[in-house]
């Protein structure tokens, strides 16, 4: 695949539960009628996209992260490893070296700097990756194992897989985790455009402001989608107008849409207001793609 032609859209939000998955799944399913595209579920702690999609996944691929494993025969107890680890993931207890896997960031410092090769890096399971394909619709999901603390290594693994595969469409939609910290930063970092989904409440506005600040600090181009319009006020719209952030589309609150979502159903075929909003998003993105180099 010609990497220069890929166009990557991240759907993110700040606040959880504003409608990222609703937008990402309906948009991907609807758009894939016209063209090939890839949807990636990067909310690896709680991946939900697959619940809404009628796709049959290929067998899951186990994903690993690299963790040092102590070799007592080679170790001279020089203490370099415990000293270099900035994450307190290695400790010495008498004549034993203990590795705390959950604290390890897989930086290789202890392993690489060990003078006797007593800490070789070994793969440890952290989660699963699933790939599914249906006509023009490609889907990849990352799923962190329960009890694993760090989402970032899994998110990076999924993005690396997307980057490496040759058979993946140029148009790529990333459904991101909520928040404004490291998981989101890693999920959006390769995106050409970020779509921030929010709701017209004080919570939605507060978290949108944080998300916009985050995206600005990363120099990301972005637009906003207001979901559940009608449940609150117009403060989000006014703030976007005043801050020079384009509101790409507004999805009016509709109880039928909420019921369908609760049942795990896509709504773009039956809900004309949602379809109109998605058409606006597609028109907006298509325009951006024309000028993308």
């Amino acid at each position, binding site marked *: 695949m010609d990497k220069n032609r890929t166009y990557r859209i991240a759907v993110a939000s700040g606040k959880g539960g504003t409608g990222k998955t609703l937008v990402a799944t309906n948009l991907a399913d609807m758009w894939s009628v016209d063209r090939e595209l890839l949807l990636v579920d990067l909310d690896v702690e709680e991946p939900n996209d697959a619940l809404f999609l009628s796709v049959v996944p290929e067998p899951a691929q186990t994903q690993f992260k690299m963790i040092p494993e102590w070799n007592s025969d080679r170790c001279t107890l020089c203490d370099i490893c415990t000293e*270099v680890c900035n994450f307190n993931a290695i400790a010495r207890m008498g004549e034993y070296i203990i590795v705390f896997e959950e604290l390890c960031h897989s*930086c290789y410092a202890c392993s690489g700097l060990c003078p006797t090769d007593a800490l070789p890096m070994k793969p440890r399971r952290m989660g699963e990756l699933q790939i599914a394909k249906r006509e023009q619709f490609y889907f990849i999901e990352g799923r*962190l194992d*329960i009890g694993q603390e760090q989402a970032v290594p899994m998110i990076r693994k999924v993005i690396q897989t997307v980057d490496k595969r040759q058979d993946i469409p140029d148009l790529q939609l990333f459904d991101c985790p*909520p928040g*404004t910290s*490291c998981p989101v930063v890693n999920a959006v970092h390769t995106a050409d455009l970020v779509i921030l989904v929010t709701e017209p409440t004080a919570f939605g506005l507060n978290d949108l402001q944080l998300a916009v600040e985050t995206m600005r600090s990363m120099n990301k181009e972005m637009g906003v989608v207001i979901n559940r319009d009608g449940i609150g*006020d117009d403060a989000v719209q006014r703030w976007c107008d005043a801050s020079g952030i384009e509101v790409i589309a507004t999805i009016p609150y509709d109880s039928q849409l909420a019921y369908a979502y609760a*049942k795990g159903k896509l709504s773009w075929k039956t809900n004309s207001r949602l379809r109109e909003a998605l058409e606006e998003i597609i028109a907006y993105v298509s325009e951006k793609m024309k000028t993308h180099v």
Partner: protein
Amino acid sequence: MFEIVIISGKGGTGKTTVAASIAVLEKDNSVIADCDVDAANMHLLLKPDRSKKEKYFSGKTAVIHANNCTACGKCAEVCEFDAVLVKDGIYSIDPFFCEGCGYCARVCPDNAIEMLDADSGYLFESVTRIGSPMAHARLHPAADNSGKLVAEVKNRAKRMAAESAKEYIIVDGAPGIGCPVISSLAGASYVILVTEPSTAALHDLKRLVALLQKFKLKAGCLINKAELHPEMVQQIIQYLEKEKIDLLGILPFDQAFPDAIAAAKAVVETNEHMKKLMASIWENTKSKLKAV
């Protein structure tokens, strides 16, 4: 002292609404800890005064001093996080991706790399408009949230509870099942799971329950927005029975909730019916808690 941790797996199910309501119902005998540090909302409802503010540093970030750098490239070779940038032969560190491991600084033959404390945000100790103490934080946008800040917020809340002899710490947690959530669960006396009858929320709840079972934590569940999918409410109730999780109560899908947020109040302050429902949920929680 009891620590009540309110979490949900999926975002947007009503954690903050529930936490704020309990905080109001128990205002004379509780401390609030907002542990959803990268999308904190509790301050919008409880108006903490931020009377005590301190800077929060989390880990380290590498900086390359160009004057000493000979562009040997060793740093880029060892960095596992693609955080070393090279532009026109000039090396620099991308602070968004630097994990602060310091491997680059250790292998640099010219001592050109310095590890600086990463300024990650602020920690606050406050008194809220309802008179109760509150510990909270503000993470800088795009900063690293390793769960350490969550632990700092909780430690302050515990200290404030001890100093003011309060019986309950009400912890508003983050979505997901990763480090901020695991960190908010450390030391929990009881966990309140806030869910809604939707396919996605139930999926996420199940992953969260599996996490709680790993830590052998006692939990109860509150089903919010019941009208979204009434049949699924029954399905959730059966699931809770099977997993031995207390059913604490059911809340309706009602405009009273967004209206309360718009008024910057907890719903128990704006709606008598919701106040009754929340009070019964909180009484149930206390009775389960004391039976633990």
